[in-house]
């Protein structure tokens, strides 16, 4: 059940995964950016971990804590973008004590829309939007096919991973990598990669909670 317990488990898993892949994210960002993405995100998730003691009633509350903490600790482009995403997700989740498949798809779409509203990137600009957009589309399709919440998340995570891989041939048109022009081609976008990591943890903890 995608309740507040799941949300807490997910955040913990995501924090562990970001920590584990920190150097990989740094390296991706070093090549086409400024090499801080892994460090910043790790600092953000560690700060969230330190605040997870509270009792949460709803997943929305967890998303909100995540949003506010990332916003105030991460910095850079990714901080406000993930901050806005999870704030919108929190709003979309509302008072629901657990998310069903439909609600889940709405939450994912709200998160993606928040990133787009904030960063004004379009699909194909080689940003985290290129992981979020296929994730949202896959989630919608899974819902139409009547799949369970954990199946919806699993589909979304797989699509995000594919989306991250698919940023490699793209030329960046937003964010720091855009300064590189054609030289950004051939490298994976770090924000798309971290998105894939985070959604993968959402899916695996959802399956555990099912």
């Amino acid at each position, binding site marked *: 059940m995608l309740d507040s317990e799941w949300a807490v488990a997910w955040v913990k898993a995501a924090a562990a995964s970001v920590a584990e892949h920190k150097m990989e994210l740094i390296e991706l960002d070093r090549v086409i950016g400024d090499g*801080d993405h892994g460090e910043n995100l790790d600092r953000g998730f560690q700060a969230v971990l330190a605040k997870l003691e509270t009792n949460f009633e709803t997943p929305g509350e967890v998303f909100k804590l995540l949003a506010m903490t990332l916003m105030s600790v991460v910095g850079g482009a990714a901080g406000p973008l993930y901050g806005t995403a999870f704030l919108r997700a929190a709003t979309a989740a509302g008072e629901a004590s657990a998310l069903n498949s439909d609600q889940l798809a709405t939450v994912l779409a709200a998160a993606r829309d928040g990133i787009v509203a904030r960063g004004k990137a379009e699909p194909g600009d080689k940003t985290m939007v290129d992981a979020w957009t296929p994730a949202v589309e896959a989630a919608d399709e899974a819902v139409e096919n009547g799949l369970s919440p954990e199946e919806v998340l699993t589909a979304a995570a797989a699509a995000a991973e594919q989306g991250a891989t698919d940023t490699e041939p793209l030329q960046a048109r937003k964010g720091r990598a855009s300064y590189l022009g054609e030289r950004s081609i051939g490298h994976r976008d770090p924000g798309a990669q971290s998105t894939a990591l985070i959604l993968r943890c959402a899916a695996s903890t959802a399956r555990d909670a099912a």
Partner: protein
Amino acid sequence: MKKLINDPKNVVQESVQGFGLAHADLVEVHPDPLFVSRRQPKSNKVGLVSGGGSGHEPLHAGYVGFGMLDAAVPGAVFTSPTPDAIIPATVAADSGAGVLHIVKNYTGDLLNFETAAEMAAAEGIEVRTVLVNDDVAVEDSLYTAGRRGVGGTVLVEKIAGAAAERGDDLDAVTAIAQRVNDNVRTMGVALSACTVPHAGVPSFDLEENEIEIGIGIHGEPGRHRIAMEPADGITARLLEPVLEDLGVGSGEQVLLFVNGMGGTPLSELYIVYRRATELLKERGIEIGRSLVGNYITALEMQGCSISVLRLDQELTELWDAPVHTAALRWGF
């Protein structure tokens, strides 16, 4: 890459603390969230706040003081600061006449300052923003995040600071800052990369005989890579696109700013300066003012940038106006 640091996690805190101790007459350091404010704020003066990732020292904390910034917000190294630090800095800088945010045009800085401005406005502070985007190495088009803010930032902060100090209102200070930005262009070169403390490896790889033209100030790679060449040639490569883009011509007066990236000896900056004066002379452009030194850096990167600001009488007067900060001081 060896560094005079302790735990990479504490680099910014410790450095800013040291800065505060060395310049306690000028600034106050607020540790958490971290920002630096002017020791003696004036009342009813437009407040100037800038900030951004650390690693560009003396920018920005080195420019807090009389005639320049009222507060500076240092983020982690090369990482823009977060709204929770920008907001109290904005509050500290406000003395009733509103606050100008001077923001270098990077997605991260933009987004974090934008959020902070919204929230400060909600607390009743009038906030304006000027985006500095003087780097001609980046094409300003739909296909990029727009030009970066680099060397011109120092000039915007100095001149807007002088306007605020003489009593201009928020609209007027904003307009002056915008005018400086509209009239300044910059281009940089890196001879070596820099190493972010927690990354531990250089931000890009340059061969022993390569240099990177059109570099930014975050160790991002530049516009293109060429074989190393003499300083005179490099100077022309930097200066010419700057002059083209600025459209400055014979008979005009400019401020020539040769900036070191942190790891280049001052003596080399003067070699570049010398050649730049020759090239300007050839074009009939007059150097009204100049600045040579390490004013906006990228850690220990070797290289420099050349900025040219088109001067008019008012900008010249504001440049000459007294300033008393850790890194820029005259008239005191």
